[in-house]
């Protein structure tokens, strides 16, 4: 690698450096703006701890749901052919480009008390309005496409040759899935799950619109930051740094897993 000819003009690297600075300087600005003398007190206050704990719990649950539904979705998209597949694929990935607040409105009119399914759910005794479950729904809605997209890519790259061999060795489709397909794309699933977790952790718009904001129930870390900003900008900055730290940790983890699968 070192010393080999890259063939990239210097000006491209200069523009790339400018782009990187654009992303990094705001993060540095947060760190510089932190009031370190109060940092410990700010991030360990009761509302802050409640928000962080809730964020971790709901993001974890959302990630589990993403894996549960996203893995079969990725297989269906990558390994089968059906009419309208391209359209279905585009629609499934839509939350990636949708403003989260739009997702929140969509969820409101689906699972809300007067929504498409909400009334039926209410008859069954399930009311998810303003509950932690609503937060999980909002996070899953925005995070699921990340897992589907990353796993679908991994599945396409892997191809189906190993699966064909396994089938001719007498393995039933479920056995092939369990013993061949899933282990082969295991790293893809893990890195997709990590991405989903990160996305769920940062979810704000859909949660605010759909789930509301109540300490310990629906007020996740991003909502807490937004609220703290009203009265105590220092607390907001301190909590932002916590969120940045968790995000960095998650991305680093995903990167490591990805590196680990290299040849």
């Amino acid at each position: 690698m070192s010393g080999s000819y890259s063939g990239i003009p210097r000006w491209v690297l200069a523009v790339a450096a400018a782009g990187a600075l654009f992303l990094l300087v705001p993060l540095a600005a947060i760190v510089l703006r932190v009031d370190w003398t109060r940092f410990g007190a700010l991030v360990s206050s009761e509302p802050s701890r409640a928000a962080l704990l809730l964020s971790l719990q709901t993001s974890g649950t959302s990630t589990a749901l993403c894996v549960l539904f996203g893995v079969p979705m990725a297989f269906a998209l990558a390994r089968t052919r059906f009419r309208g597949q391209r359209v279905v694929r585009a629609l499934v990935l839509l939350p990636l480009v949708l403003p989260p607040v739009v997702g929140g409105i969509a969820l409101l009119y689906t699972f809300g008390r007067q929504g498409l399914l909400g009334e039926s759910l209410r008859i069954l005794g399930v009311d998810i309005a303003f509950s932690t479950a609503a937060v999980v729904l909002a996070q899953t809605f925005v995070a699921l496409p990340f897992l589907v997209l990353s796993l679908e890519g991994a599945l396409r790259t892997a191809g189906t040759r190993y699966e064909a061999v396994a089938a001719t060795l007498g393995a039933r489709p479920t056995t092939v899935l369990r013993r061949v397909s899933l282990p082969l794309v295991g790293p893809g699933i893990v890195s997709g799950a990590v991405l989903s977790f990160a996305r769920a952790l940062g979810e704000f718009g859909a949660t605010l619109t759909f789930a509301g904001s109540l300490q310990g129930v629906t007020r996740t870390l991003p909502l807490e930051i937004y609220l703290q900003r009203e009265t105590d900008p220092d607390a907001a900055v301190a909590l932002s740094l916590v969120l940045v730290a968790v995000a960095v940790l998650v991305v680093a983890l995903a990167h490591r897993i990805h590196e680990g699968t290299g040849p």
Partner: protein
Amino acid sequence: MMRRARQAAGAVVVLSLSACGSGGQARETTLNVYAASSLQVPFEEIAEEFEAAHSGVDVQLNFAGSSDLAAQIRAGAPAEVFASANKATMEQIAAEQLLASEPRPFATNVLTIAVAEGNPLGIESLASLAEPTVSVVLCAPQVPCGSAAGDVQELTGVSLTPVSEESSVTDVLGKVSSGQADAGLVYVTDAAAAAGSVDSVPFDAAAQAANVYPIAVTGTGGDLAADFVDLVTGVQGQRVLAAHGFGKPGR
């Protein structure tokens, strides 16, 4: 190659300068007014009256949450007039020596109960919001409408258990109009602006916890800014504000 690119860039600069020039001839002076979101409708009317009375002046209105505006002013935004939705924010700005005039209260706003259209649950008083079957949404205590809601509870002794504490009045109205919540406490002016999607149920104690809006000229403002403040606090401004549901501050 390089030179041609530079010439092209030069041409763009000249063009944009001339565009500015031609636009600037009609209005030579601008006045930057920063006002709380709830003031949007009356202030747009007042600004029109001000422009009519001051030819050549363009009033630029910037609406946002009071604390957002305060943060912008601290960061050096070119505000000349600041109208806040609560005293506390204005006092912070005053304490930081960012004002050129004494803040003057110019309007009050009171809370009201926002309910779904037609008031299906028949809510009549603050006390009926305390019933466990009614889901209530409030503003969070950190924002003005939330601190007002706290004051009302303290005054009346009615203790509410909200299902959600929102960051803005808009979010409270959204939860009520979508049917997620049965009722919410918002300002009368907000309920009036949202008429058609929510109904408003006034209650007695609201007046005792009225929210006072102060206005002031900021450090960068001059005579024109002072004129604008006079217009808002004068008869004309007060008439417009009253037409949109705002109350008169007591002295």
